[in-house]
């Protein structure tokens, strides 16, 4: 592990990471990688987010979709747990609520494969001080 020794180190690291995070461990085809984030705070896990995350990882691989599934913290929509965020290459991120395995399957088949929207999208109701997040919504 390289240590961050100076301010310059941190700046350099941040720039590298920003590129990397942007396509999230892109692999060989950053332009075709689907990114999925699952809200995995205590509340999400209690509503079954862990099962959904495992399902998404397994099914996306089985169905041959180039994708990266990661966990994240609470998105704030406790009433609609489990919640996931899907970013198709070249598209803005979309958040879906009440995602059980059945819904996850529908999202893979309709949205991820065909770009077709499905019911249950949660509109982003906040602004964040972080610009790329602010602009990152539909």
């Amino acid at each position, binding site marked *: 592990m390289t240590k961050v020794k100076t301010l310059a180190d941190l700046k350099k690291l941040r720039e590298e990471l920003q590129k990397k995070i942007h396509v999230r461990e892109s692999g060989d085809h950053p332009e075709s990688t689907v990114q999925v984030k699952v809200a995995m705070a*205590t509340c999400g896990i209690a509503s079954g987010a862990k099962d959904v995350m495992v399902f998404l990882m397994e099914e996306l691989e089985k169905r041959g979709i180039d994708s990266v599934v990661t*966990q994240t*913290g*609470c998105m*704030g929509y406790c009433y609609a747990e489990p919640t996931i965020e899907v970013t198709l290459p070249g598209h803005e991120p979309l958040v879906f609520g009440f995602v059980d395995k059945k819904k996850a399957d529908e999202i893979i088949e309709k949205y991820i494969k065909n770009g077709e929207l499905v019911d249950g999208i949660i509109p982003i109701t*906040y*602004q964040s001080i972080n610009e790329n997040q*602010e602009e990152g919504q539909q």
Partner: protein
Amino acid sequence: MIKHKIHILVCGGTGCKSSNSDLLVSTLRNELIENGLDKEVQVVLTGCFGFCEQGPIVKVLPDNIFYVGVKPDDAHEIIAEHIIKGRKVQRLLYVDPKTKERIQDAKGMNFYKKQLRIALRNCGFIDPESIDESIARDGYAALAKVLTELTPAETVQIVKQSGLRGRGGGGFSTGLKWEITAKSQADQKYVVCNADEGDPGAFMDRSILEGDPHTVIEAMAINGYCTGADKGLVYIRAEYPLAIERLKIAIKQAREYGLLGQDIFGTGFNFDIDLRYGAGAFVCGEETALIHSMEGERGEPTFKPPFPSEEGYLGKPTNVNNVETYANIPPIILQGAEWFSSIGTEKSKGTKVFALAGKVNNVGLVEVPMGTTLREVIFEIGGGIKGNKKFKAVQTGGPSGGCLTEKHLDIPIDYDNLIACGSMMGSGGMIIVDEDDCMVSMAKYYLDFTVEESCGKCSPCRIGNKRLYEILETITKGKGTVEDLDRLRNLSEVIKDTSLCGLGQTSPNPVLSTLDNFLDEYEAHVKDHKCPAGQCRDLMTYWIEPENCVGCTACARVCPVSAISGERKEVHIIDAALCIKCGACLEKCKFNAVYVS
């Protein structure tokens, strides 16, 4: 493969559903089919837009046009004008209340977003177990800035000028606290993070630790630099296992990167963090009790002064701040005191995270600028009351806070306004109560909690709260008298005045605020022996309306105590002396013959 060119998003939040958004969806779909557009345009039902007052909401993509107050009758015009001819339906656009202009620019659509995320900026965005993702979002940049560009005193000034106040409940100036700790002379100082979130229904701090642990670590290190401490401690309750796990991972990663440990950023500054676990006692959220618990002593408060900033953990100067307070520090350092103090009200700056719970549609975590009204939080972001019931009160500040009612809904939320209304900010729990909830029972619930959580050190709190609880119990059993109400008030005042710590000094607040705002409910209990909300079991009577009863015997068969008698096909009767008011007969009766009063 179907590729829709246009998407029409229709809000399917509970608020909009009650304004008939379901019919709107089907009408839109029918219109599309009639015009042969259903292959090109898709109608999608979404969650709540948080703009319920103007519902139902319709958003057309990719044009990003936002229509408000759309009725099923408007579907034809939207399809005929917007979708087919590409002309916006002017009359359905949102009118800015100030400028009276119709909002056209899709970029300006943020106007309706009442939430602003500062403390929660990374929650639900980064992987909390990856320091790389944190760094990519400016993690540790504020620490780097203070270590390489600012002196400790300059940093304290920034925090002071930002106007940030403690988010744990007290609302003490954070910068001032830092300054006092910095000025205290000692060979060793400590930085403590109070993660002993104990209010029932509050989960803000847990969510921050679970979603963005690095921001707390970074802010504690900044505080260490400012105050001259090289040791940080996070006091966290053992009942938050996931938060603990993620915090441990984050600390380990920060050490590996050299962001914790010796000679950080090559500046000679040393800082490291350890965890201390609490057993989940409410009183340990009080800073002196918290410190004693960390020292291995009983979690009991001691008299202040001396304040922890002068004499804290192991007798050394200790800066104690809450999780959310720390989460605000890095953005303040990076964006400046002026930016932060431009948000909020005159005396309360920045934002506040609330855990919205109870009888509200969109239960969740929200972060709003100080000065936002309760109405906006509950009816816009929260999507209104569940089941279209009537709003009765909102409880803020947990067991130390109070109830606010309809008349308080338009007051801008900040520390001072809430106190003026007889409640308090507290850590940010917000529990919504509707017409079905009994306020006396609610006060009793909080007193039950306080009695359980009182450490027992001082008599007013240990004995007084127990007596308060007993009086409330008598009242909810229908055995209270008018004199009991005076007794409640007097005892409450005494407990407030004579208790040692914040727990006892605030524990009667739920009683006092409900007495002030809902005296009629208390009076109904003690004078008429009735519970207007129908929640106090002992005050209810179940009876059968002879006209509706068909003598099906269903109620008699379900009654667990055989309190219902009657022959088949004849009117049944409930024996009030035997009835235990379980409500089974009411649920079972198909003929609306069972009544409660």
